[in-house]
């Protein structure tokens, strides 16, 4: 079944539009995006693991988690929730962190608007708009060590596919 993945950068507008369909009802998908123990299971590209330190899914609340690498390398990721429509949408502002997980408030920020739609077949479509202030914010994600993680993950996937 196709997941209709969309990845549309608009550099002039500094946005990236992502769309993805999931083979699960909206309640489950919403849970997976908003509950720490579930988020920790999918947001770390292998072999990186996401470990949530603080999760307060309320407007003004934050999600602070560490991306922990195979050699104990660690990088904090910080997001503040700015709007929540339960079961259908939320917005957050992401910030850089220092080594202790404190947000750098005057640093560049990313803004994320995530919307959830119930679609035919008890499936769910997630629509996410990421707006960033600077090149460095996107660089943070791809040069923060996840690059190696992503490559390892591809390899694992290849091995998995080969073994089936």
């Amino acid at each position, binding site marked *: 079944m196709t997941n209709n993945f969309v990845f549309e*950068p608009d*550099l002039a507008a500094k946005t990236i539009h992502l769309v993805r369909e999931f083979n699960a009802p909206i309640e489950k998908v919403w849970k997976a995006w908003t509950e720490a123990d579930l988020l920790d299971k999918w947001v770390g590209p292998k072999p990186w693991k996401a470990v949530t330190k603080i999760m307060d899914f309320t407007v003004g609340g934050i999600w602070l988690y560490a991306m922990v690498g195979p050699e104990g390398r660690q990088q904090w990721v910080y997001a503040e929730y700015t709007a929540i429509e339960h079961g259908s949408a939320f917005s957050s502002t992401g910030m850089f962190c220092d080594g202790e997980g404190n947000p750098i408030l005057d640093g560049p920020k990313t803004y994320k608007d995530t919307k959830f739609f119930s679609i035919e077949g008890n499936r769910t479509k997630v629509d996410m708009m990421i707006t960033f202030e600077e090149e*460095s914010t996107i660089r943070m994600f791809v040069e923060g060590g996840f690059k190696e993680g992503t490559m390892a993950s591809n390899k694992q996937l290849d091995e998995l596919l080969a073994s089936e």
Partner: protein
Amino acid sequence: MRRDVFQAIADPTRRAILSLLVLGAMTPNALAAHFDSKRQTISKHIQILTECEVLVQKKTGREIYYHFNPQKMKEIDIWLERFRKMWEDRFDQLDALLEDL
């Protein structure tokens, strides 16, 4: 003030300057002739584009020519590709998780 590629292309005049230079190097005078804006305004845009490293100045004889630097734009493509891959991987992991929920 930090300069980056996104800042270079955030402005419509700067995008127009870039699309002209993709076709070939130009002197500041020749560039300015394409726009109704004041020469000073165009100079400012050129300065920003140079600071963003999407333009390079080269002297040919007594004239300065501005050249488009495709390398700088390619960097963005590479970052975006990695970013896309990261999300793809995450979503694949989420698929697996949702199956077990």
